[in-house]
């Protein structure tokens, strides 16, 4: 059983890592069989640029609770209607950028929140989660991107670090595959030497950074801090790499093949989903974000217009493309849910039971930023699914959802972004 081996390894190698170990033990008291390892909590955030087709994606606001009709845009999810929740009336109060579907989606920050700066962001929910859920895994979190970020706004992925700076992501399924499963063929001794060399590279550039730092203005020092911070991140990653050096990368039971190069659009997203599942199966990371491509998706569906053009739909071709995009996403999501459900954990539960998935965007559709489209699935955060929820307050902070999901996944932060409290209805 991988968990016990992982823990014993980590427990022996580092004291910092003892905490999650104990936490997990605490949890396990409530599990059915105390000696079975408790499956880990996982979080997945999936964002679509440009939002959705509002006319056909949202369920009728009058039908709430369990008895509601899935609209056309979500129809491919009908098989899993019991396993999803659509929640309406969430929004970010500071969002004014009509083309930025992802920049503030997981942060809720105020772009102009700091005087003298024309852009400001804060930590994203996934990175808050990663700090807790990422301690025991090879990769603290995994960020995925479509190569072009149309409709998502500035950023390198959905993730923003503790300093509110963009976190880079992997652009292709091939890169993700290699990150997850490529096995090092280099002998151990040489790999240790390489790690050591990497450290002395960092050490060397830090030496230069320190001399550059001398005499800089405070603004310039802040700028250079991004450099220091990046080097520190690599150091942390190297430390982790070292801990994991002797643990070979595991392959999932159903083997995954290296994806073909150049997958685009529908097939690309599907492959990313499959690889995320495989990563969860071998527990190489527990926090995933994916900033999904739209141009390549719709062109793979046969559209000849750009996604930006599509997003300004009126009834006719552009709306048809927009709806087709929604349905494809629903189909892909159904595929993802199916795989989550059929992947067994050690205790007999499924990946689905232990993962909290959010699908959505900061943009509702066109230039609308209210009622951010939000679809939840997975049992990781303890949400009672199968319902359509419409919040009473049409401006309920989207950050209340992030807080609820974080808390529900065992991360006891008190607030996130501009949250005002948890959304109790989700759990009732």
């Amino acid at each position: 059983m991988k968990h016990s081996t992982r823990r014993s390894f980590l427990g022996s190698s580092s004291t910092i890592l003892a905490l999650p170990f104990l936490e997990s033990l605490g949890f396990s008291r409530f599990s059915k069989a105390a000696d079975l390892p408790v499956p880990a909590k996982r979080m997945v955030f999936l964002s679509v640029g440009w939002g959705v087709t509002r006319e056909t994606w949202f369920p009728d606001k009058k039908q709430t609770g369990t008895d509601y009709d899935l609209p056309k845009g979500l129809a491919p999810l009908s098989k899993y209607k019991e396993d999803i929740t659509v929640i309406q009336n969430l929004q970010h109060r500071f969002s004014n950028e009509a083309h930025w579907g992802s920049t503030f989606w997981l942060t809720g920050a105020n772009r102009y929140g700091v005087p003298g700066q024309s852009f400001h962001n804060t930590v994203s929910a996934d990175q808050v989660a990663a700090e807790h859920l990422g301690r025991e895994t090879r990769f603290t979190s995994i960020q995925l991107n479509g190569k072009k970020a149309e409709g998502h706004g500035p950023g390198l992925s959905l993730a923003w670090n503790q300093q509110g700076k963009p976190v880079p992501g992997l652009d292709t399924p091939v890169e993700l595959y290699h990150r997850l499963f490529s096995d090092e063929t280099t002998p151990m001794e040489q790999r240790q030497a390489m790690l050591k060399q990497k450290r002395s590279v960092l050490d060397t550039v830090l030496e230069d950074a320190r001399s550059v730092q001398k005499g800089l203005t405070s603004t310039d020092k802040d700028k250079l801090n991004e450099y220091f911070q990046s080097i520190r991140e690599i150091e942390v990653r190297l430390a982790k790499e070292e801990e994991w050096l002797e643990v070979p990368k595991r392959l999932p039971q159903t083997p995954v093949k290296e994806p073909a190069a150049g997958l685009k659009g529908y097939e690309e997203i599907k492959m990313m989903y499959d690889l995320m599942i495989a990563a969860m199966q071998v527990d190489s990371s527990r926090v995933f974000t994916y900033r999904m491509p739209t141009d390549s998706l719709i062109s793979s569906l046969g559209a000849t217009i750009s996604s930006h053009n599509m997003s300004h739909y009126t009834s006719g071709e552009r709306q048809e493309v927009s709806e087709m995009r929604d349905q494809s996403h629903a189909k892909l999501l159904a595929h993802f849910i199916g795989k989550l459900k059929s992947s067994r954990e050690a205790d007999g539960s499924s990946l689905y039971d232990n993962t909290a998935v959010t699908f959505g965007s900061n943009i509702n559709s066109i230039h609308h930023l209210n009622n951010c489209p939000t679809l939840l699935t997975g049992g990781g955060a303890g949400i009672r699914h199968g319902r359509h929820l419409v919040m009473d307050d049409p401006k309920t902070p989207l950050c209340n959802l992030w807080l609820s999901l974080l808390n529900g996944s065992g991360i006891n932060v008190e607030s996130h972004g501009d949250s005002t409290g948890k959304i109790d209805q989700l759990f009732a």
Partner: protein
Amino acid sequence: MLLFVMYRNFAMWSQLLRFCLFSNFFLSGFVSAKDQVHHGQMPEAHFAVLEKYCLDCHDASTEKGGVNLEDLSFKMDHIASAELWQKVLNVTNSGEMPPEDKKQITDAEKTDFLADLSNQLVVARKALSDTGGVITMRRLNRREYENTIESLLGVKIKAEDLPDDSNSGGFDTTGSALFFSSDQFEQYLKIAERALDKAITFGPRPETIVKRIELETYAEPRIRKMADAHLKVFERAEAWRNSGGKLPTEFGFIDEDRIDFEVSQYERNYPTFLAYLNHPDSKTGMPLYNFFRGCTGPVVTLPSKHETGNYKIRARIAVLNDSVPEHRKYIEYGSITTGSKPGVINVEGFRKIRGTMEDPEVIELDYSPGDSGNFSFMIREKHINQAEATKRFFIQSLAKTNLGPPPSLWVDWVEWEGPFYEDWPSQAHKQLFVRKQKKQELADYHQRVIENFAKRAFRTKEPAPAFLEKLNKVYHDEINYGKKPIEALKKALSIILASPGFLYLNEPVFQKDHRKLSDRELAVRLSYFLWSGPPDAELLKSAKSGDLKNDSELQKQTARMLRDERADEFIAAFTHQWLHMERLDFFQFNYLKYPQFDESTKESARREVYETIKASILEGRPIRELLKSDHLVINNLLADYYGIEGVEGEAYRRVKVPPGLPRGGLPGMAAVMAMGSDGERSSPVERGAWILRSLLNDAPPPAPANVPQLSRLDGKQLSAREMQKAHQEEPQCAQCHRKIDPLGFGLENFDAVGLWRTAEVFQLSKAEQRKAKQSGKPTNLKIPIDASGTMPDGSEFSDFFELRDRIAERDEAFARGFVENLIEYALGRPFGFSDYDLADHLMEQARAKDYAMSEFIFGVVLSKRFKLK
């Protein structure tokens, strides 16, 4: 902060005070002179709107929803007040407020209220994010990084894995928006190692070889093979058909569907293959046919080694006959991938062919394979660079003639010669490997190489000894791990190229707010401004000698640098960002509607803008000529595109505009018009907004969020005029569109790709087409263009030419917009209120020279601010 608290305290008196005094006047005693001048300010008159429609629920005592508009300052000088005004704008835009059951704001009131509010919010945002003149230390952006590596190592690299840096909203030189990530660090190391591998060239100079390919021996067998394959399958299908009901499997087919498919393939392709083989000129060369699967032409594979070398590609080409139209006399060339994803074409240039079958011409192309991996060199007829388009054109032709499109060009042979090197070992190699002293140990020598390179990479700044020591340690460690000395050296050198001293343009001030730049720093700032790259030896020499301190020398260097071809980088990058030319790449142009607007045409059109501005700068022409001119700066392709005769050759040059032709100046350039479209239709809104933003320096506020879309327009074909009427219906739209749309109408004579038209043609919907056919009416709708309209100040124009005159009259506004952008680009930070003085000063200086762009460039460089950290 203090001010804010005070203001809140006495704000409760404000309603009373408002009737006696204007709050900004009253407040002026409390604020510093700087704050007083620049902030968003809602005109007090709009208090009437708040009072009439909002205060019932949102006054100081009711504060419904926690919103108190009574005490809201009309001066947006704090984030809090700006936020609340933003909220007011948002709910008014979305129609959420006033609530449905309450009294509604009249359209006229709402339009004016929203117009002022959205514009003032832009001012407020700008004021509140003003850096107060601080220039944030700048990381080399991607372009600068590529150029700097090229200058150091002589290797052209494509750093595509680095972030593109041009999406931050401002210029890519804005230090505060140039972030750094751990991922990037690793990329820098990787790219540096790759570049060093190429730059270091030991061994003998590779031999230059010539290889010629006679194309009849190259092309004919390939096409015959395909033709034969089709024929054989077809014959098998025929055999099955005549077999009297035997199973398809007996003839090698899975089923009858497969047979149908193969036969259809045969019918589509075979006749054109046969036509090729029967073409008399296929016996002596290669007629450039376009087949269903692609446009053919010779593909030349160069040896994979020595990628840094240059090659000459020659081809003997002719136009097949007299009936070939001008626009089909072009070949284009570039690379075609051969690796795991073969067939992707990257067009790099074109040539117009004048040779005839009696007298073919030999063209010679320079080609440098450069850094990237697996590809070959290709030549073909100029064509839309989309496989889909090739297929559609083939099928269109098939419907008419049973054959694919007839060829227009013929190639006799192709040859390549290379590789050529300017120097061997390369200049970069020689610079890297300084002279070795006699009896010097290799390790000591390498240490010197490292030191020398570090200093060059740091733009002559001495690297810290501790840093050099650590580099040396890395070098020795590598050797201890069993690496060859040269590999250890590369490792150490690559680290230098990922260090802050190289990656950042750092200007320490040592506890002062501002200080004068050192001569070296000034040289660096100047070269990254005008070349997007490091200073050359001459500029460094001028800095070192102290000459650069003198304005006359600084001016001389600036003039020299502008004439250098490296300044093309500044002109292209600055222009691209200043005029928002990224829109040219936003959309794919509909190739069925606009078959002429292919890759080469688009790139030529893009370059027309750059070349026109370059010529204007180098010749010191009045800036007005960019708005209206009797000259164009074009090449042969654009001359054909615009319908101008007698322009031969690919070089850009000044050409007189023939009388009556609607060209000359930015309005009317194909690239500008194409930017103002979505690839299908012209967009008067985009074009109008562009004129306001880029030409009249009067940018409209950003597209607002949550404005209800005009759903009654769904699916209707509307002329530009009808669209405008719709925009005037709702105050939320009218507030901006009343200003934007009329300007766009003035350009409606240009279609989506900038060609002149007199009517807009709409395809009717399918149902309407059916109806029209039954009653014998045309299936499309022609609406004549009416290009009359008004300028924002109410002056009128009746057509494009008058619109252009109106714009050209406002050359001062254009110049002001230019100089503000130039200051922002040059200083690497948003143009702020603290720069107004400089902009005013430069305007005044340049007025006598009709605002020549060169005057502004010199003015910025010579300004105090440019010489200050």
